[in-house]
């Protein structure tokens, strides 16, 4: 009581193109707003009344200047007497319509009876409008704290990676002819290592025994003419 209360209609999804929504808030204490396109309204209750006020929100919708079915939201607002401390200047209440299937007409000029966009408003139990303010979100960490947090997370990840590598590092030797030639003086001009075996081989195969030969006489006599001892 005596504190401005912010009322807001929360839509689950924005209205499709061509649709126009108008809102009118009735705060239950005899005051109400005009039709407006704003989804928010602020009101200050001067008396506590019976302890609560029935808040009534009308939502009128038009599609391309054609008036479509309207929707209402009713919600009771508890008003706390002024003997309680007033915590903040502005209280916040959210009225959340439930999601509604949208089926635009194939011919937008003459929408079919089923082509409706009905912002059904069903209050979320946790968002009961009241004067009790919603606690502000916790302040963001200061940059210096964030930096330390990043460093700590990085160290943890590095340690974890090192542990995994030591535990599961590949045991197999990489196959292939690898040769290392250590040079203690890297700046000195490097020359090929000496006393290395030549990487090619020449193999001489006279291949005589695998050859063919033919022994011929005149055909009339044996090769062995005479045997002397």
């Amino acid at each position, binding site marked *: 009581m005596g504190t401005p209360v912010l009322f807001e209609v929360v839509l689950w999804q924005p209205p499709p193109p061509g649709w126009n929504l108008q809102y009118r808030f009735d705060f239950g204490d005899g005051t109400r707003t005009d039709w407006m396109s704003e989804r928010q309204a602020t009101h200050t209750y001067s008396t506590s009344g019976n302890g609560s006020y029935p808040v009534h929100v009308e939502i009128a919708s038009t599609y391309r200047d054609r008036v479509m079915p309207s929707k209402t939201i009713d919600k009771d607002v508890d008003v706390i007497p002024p003997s309680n401390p007033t915590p903040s200047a502005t209280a916040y209440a959210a009225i959340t319509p439930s999601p509604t299937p949208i089926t635009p007409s194939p011919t937008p000029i003459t929408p079919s009876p089923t082509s409706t966009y009905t912002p059904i408003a069903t209050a979320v139990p946790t968002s009961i409008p009241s004067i009790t303010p919603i606690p502000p979100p916790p302040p963001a960490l200061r940059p210096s704290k964030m930096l330390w947090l990043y460093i700590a997370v990085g160290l943890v990840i590095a340690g974890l990676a090192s542990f995994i590598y030591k535990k599961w590092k590949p045991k197999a030797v990489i196959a292939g002819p690898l040769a290392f030639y250590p040079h203690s003086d890297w700046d000195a001009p490097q020359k090929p290592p000496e006393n290395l075996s030549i990487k090619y*081989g020449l193999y001489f195969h006279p291949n005589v*025994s695998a050859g063919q030969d033919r022994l011929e006489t005149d055909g009339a006599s044996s090769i062995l*003419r005479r045997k002397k001892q």
Partner: protein
Amino acid sequence: MNNSSLNLRTLFSFPDPAATAAPSNKWQEFQSRLGREIKTIKWPAAMPDLTSKIGELFNVELPDLLVSSWKKARELQEALEASRKSPDEIIVLDLAEHEIANEYHPYIEIRIAGLPLPKKIEFEVRIVTALKGINLKIQGGTITEIQAGSCDFEGKIKYGDLTIAEKKLGPIELLGVSTIAKQEASPTK
């Protein structure tokens, strides 16, 4: 084997790598072709001077080729078998005029680290030797010496379709040529 002139390398007059004289046209053509072919090889070290080493492939003694062929003749096999039974007895075999044709394919294999298949440089050698008045001394089942005789030599070495050496020599005296070393090195086929 003390008669070095009966080495095929000598008989075919392979150029001496140390010689200052220019090689023959055929030899130069062979060198050129070989150079082109081995250029396709990725040499891991300095390219060897192959042409200077080709001659090593023909360090084959002509009498060794002849002995190898003689030992395949049935009559000589029987004589050698008889000599084996009387190892102390020296037998001289007088051979009729005959001709021995040899064909074989020596090759140089180049194996390079990292290449799965060796490169093969293969030659074709054809030799025809016409022998006259040959007397073979045999002892202990082995032809130990060519005591007398002569031959006409005709040979050709080809690399692919390129004839790199062709020789026709004769008559060549085969007097007192020892043949023991070869036979001890390789058993009778």
